[in-house]
């Protein structure tokens, strides 16, 4: 069976924690990481169904992390988050097949709708 567990990666730890709490309230299982390298280490194939990834992070940005995750687990779906709507990475993210790019600050209700759509997709 496909996992619906959500991988949340954002270098803003407070936001990552809040997102997991919001997702758990909505009935999802989720883990957060504030460091892309640790997230990559944790993402064994099949563990996560969807990744929710911030595009701008120190060390490895969201686009790079997504590419690395896809190499590990080609079935993983992904949604990006960004405070920089005009970031070049937005185009890269969509070009790489991420399902959506959500602008920050994110509306919680909208986030849940997008994740449900991603699960159904």
């Amino acid at each position, binding site marked *: 069976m496909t996992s619906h567990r959500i991988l949340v990666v954002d270098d803003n730890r407070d*936001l990552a924690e*809040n997102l997991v709490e919001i997702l758990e309230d909505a009935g999802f299982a989720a883990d957060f990481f504030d460091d892309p390298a640790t997230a990559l280490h944790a993402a064994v194939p099949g563990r996560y169904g969807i990744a929710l990834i911030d595009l701008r992070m120190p060390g490895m940005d969201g686009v790079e992390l997504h590419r690395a995750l896809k190499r590990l687990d080609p079935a993983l779906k992904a949604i990006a988050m960004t*405070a920089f709507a005009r970031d070049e990475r937005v185009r890269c993210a969509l070009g790489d097949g991420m399902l959506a790019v959500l602008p920050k*600050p994110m*509306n919680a209700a909208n986030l849940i709708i997008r994740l449900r759509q991603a699960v159904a997709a």
Partner: protein
Amino acid sequence: MAPPEEHLFDEIKRYVGFSATDEAHLRRVGPRIAPHAREITEDFYRRILAHPNARSAFTGGDAQVESLKCTLVVWMRELFDGPWDLAYYEKRARIGRRHVAIDLPQQYMFTAMSVIRSHLVRIVLDTADGPDVAHGELFAVDRVLDLELAVMLHTYRENSLARLQQSERLATFGQFAASIAHELRNPLGVIESSSFLLRKRLGAPPEPVARHLDKIDAQVQLSNRIITSLLDLVRERPSVPRDLSARDLITAAQDTLPACPAALRVELADPVPVLRADPDQARQILVNLLSNACDAAGAEGSVVVSVRADGDAVAFLVNDSGPGIDPTIRTRLFEPLVTTKVRGIGLGLALCRRLAERNGGTIALTTGPLPGAAFELRLPTITTRGEGA
């Protein structure tokens, strides 16, 4: 020890080959020019004013031109008297900067100088003690006029460098403001999501708690709107003009407008004017103007928007019954960070002006039938390229 840096004027003199011999020649020529100074001046201004583009630089009318004629007579006397030292350079540069300040195009300064040159050459030839003397004197006149041209051109260069620095400073400020604005969205995201979670955890909180949560949410939204306005202000999104019906534009603006407590009336000219502007940007200008007018008018007041075609523009008058604009900030009203509102940050009107200009339009404070503030937004009916468009 390093030699002292050569002053620009000394460098120009060296380059032109301006020597003590030239100075002696000029001092001899001066008294022969003086009787003709007035006639040269009259011809000089007659020719300049014959060019509409050059004439438009003189906004002060006849009085300004008369005063400039006096200045030119003195200028000519000094041209032959010297001393051609740094104080001379400073005086000449001041005159040059005056040309720059009135926006006199460089080519008119150049051709005007050649009017003077031909008069001086003619007088020198007519009055010299033989061709050999005339030869030396003519060289001296040429060289001193070349010095003048070099100084004048330098003042234009000073000005373009200063403008470049100004626009670079603005660009740097813009990037700085944009990066702060973006960074603020991260903490706002945490505040918003924490408030969302708190609300859920608390279920139906007692009234004061709910009130504080509402305040947090409202302030987060306000902060986010400020960030969006700031980003709109500093980034140069190109305008994509389209033909727009004034009626559609006002309807779109009203749809976006947060609830207006005042009575809002729209008066459209018949036939409904059509303008050409970027739909989003035009709507944003009207939303800002309407939202200011509604705030100022309050629940008891009223707001009137009237639209008419006026020449090659469509004029929108947004007028309210509020207290009007404080006279002390009238002249700075469109500058960023100037506000009359207790809770405004003063980006709305600055943004309106930027957007209007980007669409080849204008926005100005005016008067209207209602006693409060009145703004006139003019947008073109045909595509014009505004600054930054």
